[in-house]
């Protein structure tokens, strides 16, 4: 559907309080549809192998979306869609999106369940807080990892010139300009000047200030929007989507269904996720990012999120040609073995389920530069290997990995790790000997567990 119709409906749709939308449309709808379509988690399964349940989940999600629409948080109106409009939207959703320029021009595509094609890897700082003094070096270190297909979210600048940046301020616009300049400089230094940069500078309208064909983020760079849980959109997101669509950028639309929230458990939340995939497409998204959140855990590799990620991805992969990517956040931090155990478990669950890859990054709370480009390499390698596995083959490895970290899912329990500047030699931009050794040890262990690295 044309975005101009969407923004029109945000001004003319039925008025409703947010609580009524969430309780009466979303929560009540999920409870009814979950029963009607028999979507149930058995309390044990980490990777869904039930195709029929995946199909029922998709149908339930579609029904839910037709009942809910999308809530416009600022106008307090519901943007509603007819069944015909949804079918039309799904039919014309892109199955391939091009991005980047020159030698780095590339394409992200829809993946099927157990699709042997390699997943696309969005890798980078992933909105970790990045200090201005290390912004370029950190992004250069990510960009030099050749398995990364697009540089992901070059990082939040929290301070500039010694001052804390207030979102929406003039200082934040200056930060957005520098964000574009420094991210472009980083990929140039890495010898990949046309590498796509998936941008999401701050959650504010002035983020568009990082756009420039000459020095910043370009038309060929995807720009990220985030729908608010559940099935809500704010004016800033709609405005940015309208601007970037008009400018010609690929639209990377994220949503974050909450396990334990309005969708209930992982099974009910999978229905919300299916509805949210459709919502993302109807709201102008072209690449859709699922980032499950959890009411108790801040990371995405707990048992609920593994199951939800696998089921929701299979639902959308089997029944549409939407391009999907799954975010990977962990409790363990870079520099610890738990970090790759966690992101590998989730990658092995979602890649054979039809997803592309986004991440990895530790979950909040984050310190400055709490990411590792070397671990992004391992993440991509695991993802590529996972494309050779069936879901059943991957499931046994996921179970073995989950056992290693299941009792350390919180920030307090998980190993704290170390930031980029302690894991890398900043002069040579190479990992320290210790960090390199950790990478090799964990990779060997993953191979022993059955991950088929090339």
């Amino acid at each position, binding site marked *: 559907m044309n975005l101009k119709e969407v923004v029109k409906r945000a001004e003319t749709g039925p008025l409703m309080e*947010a609580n009524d939308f969430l*309780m009466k449309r979303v*929560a*009540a709808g999920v*409870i009814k549809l979950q029963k009607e379509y028999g979507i149930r988690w058995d309390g044990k399964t980490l990777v869904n192998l039930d195709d029929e349940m995946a199909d029922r989940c998709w149908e339930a999600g579609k029904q839910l979306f037709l009942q809910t629409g999308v809530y416009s*948080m600022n106008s307090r109106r519901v943007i509603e869609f007819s069944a015909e409009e949804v079918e039309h939207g799904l039919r014309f959703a892109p199955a391939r999106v091009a991005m980047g320029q020159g030698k780095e021009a590339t394409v992200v595509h829809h993946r099927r369940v157990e699709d042997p094609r390699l997943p696309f890897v969005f890798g980078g700082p992933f909105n970790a*807080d990045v200090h201005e003094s290390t912004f370029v070096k950190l992004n250069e270190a990510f960009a030099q990892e050749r398995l990364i297909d697009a540089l992901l979210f070059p990082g*939040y600048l*929290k301070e500039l010139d010694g001052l*804390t*940046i*207030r*979102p*929406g301020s003039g200082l934040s616009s200056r930060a957005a300009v520098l964000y574009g300049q420094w991210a472009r400089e980083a990929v140039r230094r890495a010898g990949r000047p046309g590498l796509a940069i998936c941008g999401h500078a*701050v*959650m*504010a309208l002035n983020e568009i200030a990082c756009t420039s064909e000459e020095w910043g983020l370009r038309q060929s760079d995807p720009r990220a929007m985030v729908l*608010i*849980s559940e099935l809500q959109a*704010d004016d800033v997101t709609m405005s940015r989507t309208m601007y970037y669509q008009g400018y010609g950028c690929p639209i990377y639309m994220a949503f974050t269904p*909450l396990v*334990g*929230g*309005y*969708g*209930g*458990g992982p099974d*009910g939340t999978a229905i919300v996720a299916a509805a949210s995939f459709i919502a993302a497409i109807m709201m102008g998204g072209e690449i859709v990012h699922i980032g499950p959140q959890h*009411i*108790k855990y*801040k990371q995405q590799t707990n048992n609920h999120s593994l199951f939800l990620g696998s089921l929701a991805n299979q639902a959308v992969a089997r029944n549409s040609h939407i391009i999907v990517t799954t975010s990977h956040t962990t409790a363990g931090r870079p520099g610890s073995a738990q970090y790759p155990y966690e992101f590998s478990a989730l990658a092995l669950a979602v890649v054979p389920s039809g997803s592309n890859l986004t991440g990895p990054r530790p*979950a*909040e*709370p*984050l310190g400055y530069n709490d990411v590792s480009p070397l671990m992004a390499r391992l993440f991509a390698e695991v993802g590529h290997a996972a494309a050779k596995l069936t879901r059943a083959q991957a499931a046994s490895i996921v179970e073995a990995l989950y056992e290693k970290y299941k009792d350390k899912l*919180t*920030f*307090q329990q998980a190993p704290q790790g170390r930031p980029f500047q302690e894991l890398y030699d900043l002069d040579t931009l190479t990992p320290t000997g210790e960090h390199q050794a950790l990478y090799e040890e964990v990779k060997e262990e993953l191979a022993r567990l059955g991950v088929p690295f090339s």
Partner: protein
Amino acid sequence: MATADEIYAGMRNSIQEYDEAAAAAAAREAVAAGLNPVEAVEKGFAGAIRELGQAFDRMEIFLPQLVMAADAMKAGVRVLEEAIQASGGKLEKKGVVVLGTVEGDIHDIGKTVVGAMLQANGYEVHDLGVDVPSTRFIQAAEELNANIIALSALLSTTMLHQRDVLGLLRNKGLQDKYFVIVGGAPVTQQWADEIGADAYGLHAVEAVKVLDQRQAEWAR
């Protein structure tokens, strides 16, 4: 005529069934039967809602059920409160909380969970919503005679506004009047200490635990 135990059972059942109308009706029955309203709150509603709070923590029920149970309790307590006021008394509240997501941040679920859990545990909660200007928290706390200001932020960029609220309280000389608790995905104990907040809640259950444990500090 139903016995006191039967009436209390009906009140508990209304909470377990998330039924606002039934909770109000059971409360009216308690008043009509001449039961002590303060005792009725404790024996009829409080135990049931605490059990649901624990079930929520174990993920046996989820946010919608918790919100509905809290709403049912609110409806029932309102009836009992009227009876207490009519007899010249006053229902003792555990504490009055002003809650919201800070300026520039539109994420609402986290603070909604905290609000529902606090209500379930006997606090009077005033939810100011999302994107709440820093000054509004203080204004609301003053108007509502609150004990506690609870500030939620989901983004590392917006958590800075938690610091602003603390700064404004200090500027107005009100820092000792309110107990300020902060929370949200990027927030840590270290951040809470740095900005001078009184407490940090890792999640909703923890927030309740912290406030319960530190009642002597906020009930000043």
